[in-house]
């Protein structure tokens, strides 16, 4: 006989209604990435070979800085999810899979944070 309630027994073993979260976020960021890619090309292509002063002057504008932060957030989120799928598909040992997923999460977060910091630093004034 056990004093554990039926609810307690099934907790963490069943649907938390979050099973489709990965799929949904992949699509959500995919949709966001369409206009963001066009924005990034629109911004970066004319800046090819530009001087430091020119690049800083264009990133300084609040709307450009905001757009770039959106690019970084959406791209790195999409990339984190995509790379995780690749890891899960090809790495079959549980230990290595977990390690790589952790490294992937941390690396993608680091790329995002460093980029956002750089954009803010430029925008607030170097």
């Amino acid at each position, binding site marked *: 006989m056990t004093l554990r309630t039926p609810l307690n027994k099934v907790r963490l*073993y069943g649907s938390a209604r979050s099973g489709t979260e990965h799929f949904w976020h992949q*699509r959500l960021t*995919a*949709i966001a*990435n*369409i206009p963001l*890619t066009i924005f*990034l*090309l629109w911004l970066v*292509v*004319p800046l*090819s*070979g530009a001087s*430091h*002063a020119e*690049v*800083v002057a264009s*990133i300084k504008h609040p709307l450009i800085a905001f757009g*770039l932060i959106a690019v*970084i957030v959406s*791209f*790195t989120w999409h*990339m984190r999810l*995509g*790379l995780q799928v*690749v890891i899960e598909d090809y790495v*079959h*040992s*549980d230990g290595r899979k977990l390690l790589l997923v952790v490294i992937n999460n941390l690396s993608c977060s680091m*790329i995002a944070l*460093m*980029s956002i*910091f*750089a*954009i803010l*630093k*430029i925008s607030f004034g*170097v």
Partner: protein
Amino acid sequence: MSTKSDTKSRRPLSPHIQVYKPMLTMTMSIVHRVTGVALAFATILLAWWLISAAAGPAYFDFVEGILTSIPGRLILLGCTWALIHHGLGGLKHLLWDTGRGFDLKLIELFAKGSIILSLALTVLVWAIAYGAR
């Protein structure tokens, strides 16, 4: 509840891609994944470029020097194509997610169209880039 992988039990596995005749649509699927992984590398370059701009003119010139060298340009050209091809493939996947666009003739057209369109748009983007300077 076991958390052990079933792969350890050496069960027979279903055949993977090597047993199938290579097809254009299948190649496009593989290319979509490969370009996706390549774009993770491209994102690191974008981050590096932003960080260099925030660090100051000296470090920016150093990074710009690497990115605008001939190998740097080739890598950026590859990144441009990967971005556009992955983007076009993504649009196709978003259409498929709605349950539409699975007609065999259409998916063949998507595959060929995305190759031609991605190459054309890459050339266009680089023409604009060179025109801007």
